[in-house]
């Protein structure tokens, strides 16, 4: 987690609430990703592409293995080969669009945040020449866009993300089993959800994805109010998915609520680690680049 604390100052342009004012999802994705990349100008993570792009003069400090000796033979000067990235990795973005994701207490809902995150990851992956696919689900799979690496496919993915609307209840197992059945190629699977289901169901669903050889990154998206539960007055709380009601005096249960929620999150972290899945808790007030970092780290581990 410490690596995220060194996020460069450009992250202020990635404020989620500010992004809600941008109408085009592609523009949002580009804003996020370009801003993110501009903060990585000295990043060691670039350069894993294989297609030749151009020659650059050798400068002290460059890896001498990258010197093109044939050019040296012809010109008697050192040139470094530069490549463009191109991989065979496919990225599947799985977005939970159940009713509970429609909650947002400070200007952005969890679903919107998930959409921005999915779009940004998709755009970022596309820049890496990865094949990108998109799946949304609630009780079942709602949308499915298979992963492709063609230039026009990005628009399809972004359009599908944009067209995601809040659905009904969540059925994690059923939905992710369906998803895993459709993923014919191994790749990177990014699950974006609030993980509001029975913990056992959630983990079973995720394991289905992981057992089929996919690398799984789980982003649990929660609203800051959900985490803090800082309501003041007593109120009638209504479950957004089941519509059941409960009279709650926040002062009475705040402390206990936080404890239960924290236990749940810790449990997810522990289980995911056990199954070699990445788990990342994000609240919707945090900039998107934190999720991008998480993705990048995982992506780097793969190659």
């Amino acid at each position, binding site marked *: 987690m410490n690596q995220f604390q060194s996020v460069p100052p450009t992250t202020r342009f990635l404020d989620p609430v500010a992004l809600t004012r941008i109408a085009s999802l592609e523009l949002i994705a580009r804003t996020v990703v370009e801003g993110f990349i501009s903060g990585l100008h000295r990043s060691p993570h670039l350069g894993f592409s294989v297609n030749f792009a151009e020659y650059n003069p050798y400068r002290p400090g460059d890896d001498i293995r990258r010197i093109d000796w044939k050019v040296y033979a012809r010109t008697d000067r050192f040139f470094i080969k530069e490549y463009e990235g191109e991989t065979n990795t496919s990225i599947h973005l799985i977005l939970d669009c159940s009713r509970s994701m429609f909650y947002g207490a400070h200007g952005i809902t969890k679903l919107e945040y998930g959409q921005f995150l999915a779009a940004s990851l998709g755009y970022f992956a596309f820049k890496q020449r990865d094949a990108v696919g998109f799946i949304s689900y609630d009780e079942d799979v709602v949308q499915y866009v298979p992963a492709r690496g063609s230039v026009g496919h990005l628009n399809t993915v972004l359009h599908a993300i944009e067209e995601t609307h809040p659905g009904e209840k969540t059925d994690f197992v059923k939905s992710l089993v369906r998803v895993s059945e459709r993923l014919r190629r191994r790749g990177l699977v990014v699950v974006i959800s609030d993980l509001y289901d029975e913990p056992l169901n959630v983990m079973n669903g995720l394991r289905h994805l992981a057992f089929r050889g996919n690398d799984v990154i789980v982003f649990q998206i929660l609203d800051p109010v959900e985490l803090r539960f800082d309501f003041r007055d007593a109120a*009638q709380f209504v479950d957004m*998915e089941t519509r059941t009601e409960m009279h709650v005096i926040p002062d009475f*249960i*705040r402390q206990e609520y936080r404890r239960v929620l924290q236990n749940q999150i810790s449990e997810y972290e522990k289980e995911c680690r056990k199954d070699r899945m990445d788990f990342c808790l994000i609240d919707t007030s945090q900039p998107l680049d934190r999720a991008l970092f998480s993705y990048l780290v995982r992506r780097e581990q793969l190659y």
Partner: protein
Amino acid sequence: MSFVNPWFLIGALAAGIPILLHLIKRAHARRIEFPTLAFLRRISKKTIRYQKLRHLLLLLLRVLAFLLIVFAFMRPYREKAAPVAAVGKLTTAHIIVLDNSLSMGYQDRWARAKKAATDIIGRSSPDDKVAVLQFSDRTVASTQLTNDFSDALDRIESMELSDRSTRYGQALRAAEKVALDAGTGKRIIHLISDFQKNGWMAEDRDFRLSAGIELQHVDVGSDDFSNLTIRDVHVSESDQSADNEIRIKASVANFGNIDRKNIQVALLVDGRSVAEKRVDVAGGGSQGIEFQLPGLISGTHPVILEVDDPYLTRDNKFYMAIEARGKTPVLVVESNDAGGPRSSGFFLLKALNVDALSPYKLTEASPQSLTVSGRLIIWNDVPGGTAAMQKKLQDFVKGGGGLAVVLGGAAQSADFNRSFGSWLPVRIDGSGAPESLSKGRSFDSYVLMTDIRTDHPIFQPFSRPHSGSFSSARFFRHARISVGAGAEVPARFDNGDPALVAIHVDKGRVLVFASSADDSSNDLPLKAVYAPFWQQVLRYLENFQERRHWLDVGETMAPKKLLLGAALRQAKGSLDADESVVVLDPQKQRISIAPGSDDVAVDKTGFYEIRSMSVNSFVAVNAAARESDLTHGNAEEMTAGWMSSESSVFPQNEHPTAEEQDHRQRLWALLLIAAALFLISELALSNHGLRSRKEA
């Protein structure tokens, strides 16, 4: 168990406010859509129960602490059981305090007040005692505590309104004294009044009745009223007109909220209406009005300003005693053969015979043709004359006349010492006429009149800065005089010689001026202070005193002194010490003057007559202006302020000492301690909860 302040129990209702707020908020709890209630359901019931219990405990502690504080403020006390034998003998002392001030004359207030007093007696049981006090700014006990109800009723029936103003403090003090003298039993002061706001004086604000005395009130006043009266009266003699015209300025004040239009104001002089005016006066405002009195003959005249107001008629008239002085005759005795271009009295006549400005009329006479008469004589630089003449002058002064002896250049020491020196303690030193200090007025040898006693009546007007200076006048010649016992020297020259000597001779006064009244021996006539100085001399000689045009009800007057002044003014000589004086009030009732006293209190509006065998006078008396303002106070608040917090506590058969009372009420301190403990516990519990929340 009883309570000192049982009405504090109302405060306990406030303890229900937190609970009520809680219920209201619960009923109007807002709905909040939340992603999932799964975590809330997983929270253990035990935790919720604990939290609820904790909050209930907090609420309980707060409510209990609050109730204990309320309970403590109710001041509970243990009642001492009354001795059974004494119960049957208990009586109630009713002290009826009836307001008979001028404002009670408004409409039917007085009749209602008397009926209320009668009713109180009617309700009393035969064992009770009754005392009746009437009050205004003076309290009079009509009856002491008595069982004789019929006598008390007769006294009430015969009570009359006064013209005095209201003052509650002293009335309640007097009633409290009667109540305390009543001994054991219940004591009730019944205050019957119109509760005029002006009646509560600032100095009485801290007054509280003693414990155990109950105060009940009957309010016959009302917030709606209208009353017109004359106030801010100012009488001035016009300086500009030759006929001594007198102006009376006043304002018609309208107390109350109703505008009054076309109100008639009449001026009555000597009982006859001489002028009328009509004014409009807005509610709560006043309207100025001015009358000019026609030329009055010399003497004092009764003058009344009367406003036509049917509501409270007792303050409609404003009484004044206006004096038209006329000119006081002054005889200037001087030699016919002065020899100079002008007589020695030339400057005096010019300075004092100014028609509009001077109240004196000077006429010249020679010693040979002198007939001693009038009130004032100026013996202007002429020889003392014969012994017979001196005898006449002496008698004139003894009878109250005023004599000024001017020692100019013609004054001879031998002559003066022989004539005036025979009956005045003044002598001229040396021989012959006064010597001139400077030959031919070289202006280098003279004396100044610098040592002046400004506390003396003659020089008082010159005491303030820039009010006239004598030091600029140079005296080239003056008589060196020495004074004996019985003479005072209001002014001296700078060489120490007396310049002016004042002597009281029996009822009259003599002044000796050591230089001339013209410019032959000094240049005083050329100075600005000359005329005012001689006018002051004459005022002193005639013992002139400004007379007040009216007195207020409650003030005192000195009839003999007033008659003496009148006799002097009327040139009727003086009043004999043993001459009997009769004072009649405005209703022509004779007022007895206490032996050995010359003071009579005036307590009725109108004209008081003062009569003696030789001279009569009268005095105008008006009600205090503040009494006409009928603004109604809040009777409940006023009586609550006067009652002791323990006044109604021990109503029955006991009047415990302060120590006993304190002992019996000690419970309140314990209650407060308990409340404090509850509050400390509540604080600790809520702080614990707050800390937990902060940590969370």
